[in-house]
């Protein structure tokens, strides 16, 4: 299946953000990724099999509930880093929408980004 990977992990994938892996569950996909890209799993999941605080795993568009969650056929896996840093106190949001790099930018800014900024004034401190 297709696994889309966040840029901080590109050092493991040779610069690729779009890789292939196999597995019936999230845990199996992570194990397969670690075989292909040694060390990558420990950056995402700790030694107690907990997804690290600032990492997120999605099956399709839904957050993975557990590592043993089964993956439906034809689903993509997204391994992302949470928006933290200065916005650590905000609720994290993630959304996939149809479009290319340019055709819906204005609409998204108006419908999503500006209301978000108005609702959330400047952060008080930068934690990173």
């Amino acid at each position, binding site marked *: 299946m297709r696994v889309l990977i966040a840029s901080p992990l590109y050092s493991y994938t040779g610069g690729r953000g779009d890789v292939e892996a196999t597995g019936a569950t999230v845990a199996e996909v992570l194990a397969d990724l670690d075989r292909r890209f040694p060390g990558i799993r420990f950056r995402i*999941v*700790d030694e107690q099999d907990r997804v690290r605080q600032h990492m997120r795993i999605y099956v399709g568009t839904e957050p993975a509930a557990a590592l043993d969650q089964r993956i439906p056929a034809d689903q993509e896996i997204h391994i992302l880093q949470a928006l933290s840093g200065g916005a650590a106190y905000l609720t994290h949001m993630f959304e996939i929408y149809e479009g290319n790099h340019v055709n819906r930018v204005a609409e998204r800014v108006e419908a999503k980004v500006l209301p978000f900024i108005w609702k959330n004034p400047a952060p008080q401190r930068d934690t990173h």
Partner: protein
Amino acid sequence: MAGPKRSRRPTLLMIGTRKGAFLFHGDPARRAWRLDWPHLLGCIVHHLVLDPRDNRTMLMATRTGHLGPVIMRSTDRGRTWAESKLPPAFAKAPEGQAGRAVDHTFWLSPGLPSQPGVWWAGTSPHGLFRSQDGGVTWSGIEGFNRDLVGRIGTIGQETPDGAVTHSILVDPREPKHLYVGLSGGGSFESRDGGASWRALNRGVAATFLPDKDPEIGQDPHIMALHPLKPDRLYQQNHCGIYRLDRPGEVWTRIGMNMPKTVGDIGFPLVLHPRDPDTLWVIPMDGTTVWPRTSPGGKPAVYRSRNAGKSWERQAAGLPRRDAWLTIKRQAFATDGADPLGLYFGTTGGEIWMSTDEGKRWRVLASHLPEIYTVQAASLG
């Protein structure tokens, strides 16, 4: 009359910051310095240590804000880096129990020359790990990670940056004889390679605890053992500067001999590698809410040449006023050259250096990210 003997060897200065590592290459006179490119730019570098057994291998304890912690290795003195295959990690907890996870490796200590490839690592939360293959793979010391940490409990776990295991000191006469410092835990000794530990905190104040003279729970910021006199230990503690001469068991607060207006609170402490009686500290303001900045805005290094009986202020070249520097515990180093070079890095990204054992200071670099660690080596 001939002048003092001058070092003819180049110097390597290793800087770890909140945003990557930086290597400065100094000429033998330590006047001209070349900074090479940032290494792992954006990564938090807690410790960066050159192996004195080969002067080529370097280990770096690093993580990013998002990803898990790793150890990076270089076998060509920092030109290229590769990740360790099995970084420090705690044992998996039994099903249904919450296990601990390494947040970051905080401290790295090379083993003795008689044990090539051996390294020690201290972590946050408290943990002790050992490598026998130059840092490629690491295994936990259960006598520490399970037994000692269990005894300490939650003391110190709530410190702002997390509890850290640091100052892993190996007796040069006996590799199984270890000392280690735990922030919010105290100083401990093992004579069996880490299988069992005993507290070594008598005489050390713990004003932040209800029991002012507890067996454990003290807060050493850094400890050092003198290589030429391995029975001599020094520590800069949350509650003062101390010396212990073994087999003695009670630390002496040598910081009481510091000027009262300056106090004896600080993070770093370094020793003169050729004189067990000479050491340096950098005091900070530990009053009221603990600003941790230069007392009165007047930064100074203090040297003792008689094992702490008296201290002298060394501030020539440092700002005379209005300078509020913070220097972390791993950000003060000596280079081993003769005369001894001293270097410290600030959380404001400046590196200050002296090539005459602290008599005069100058800025080596500014505008670096927040400095976590400074190490220096005179290269053969």
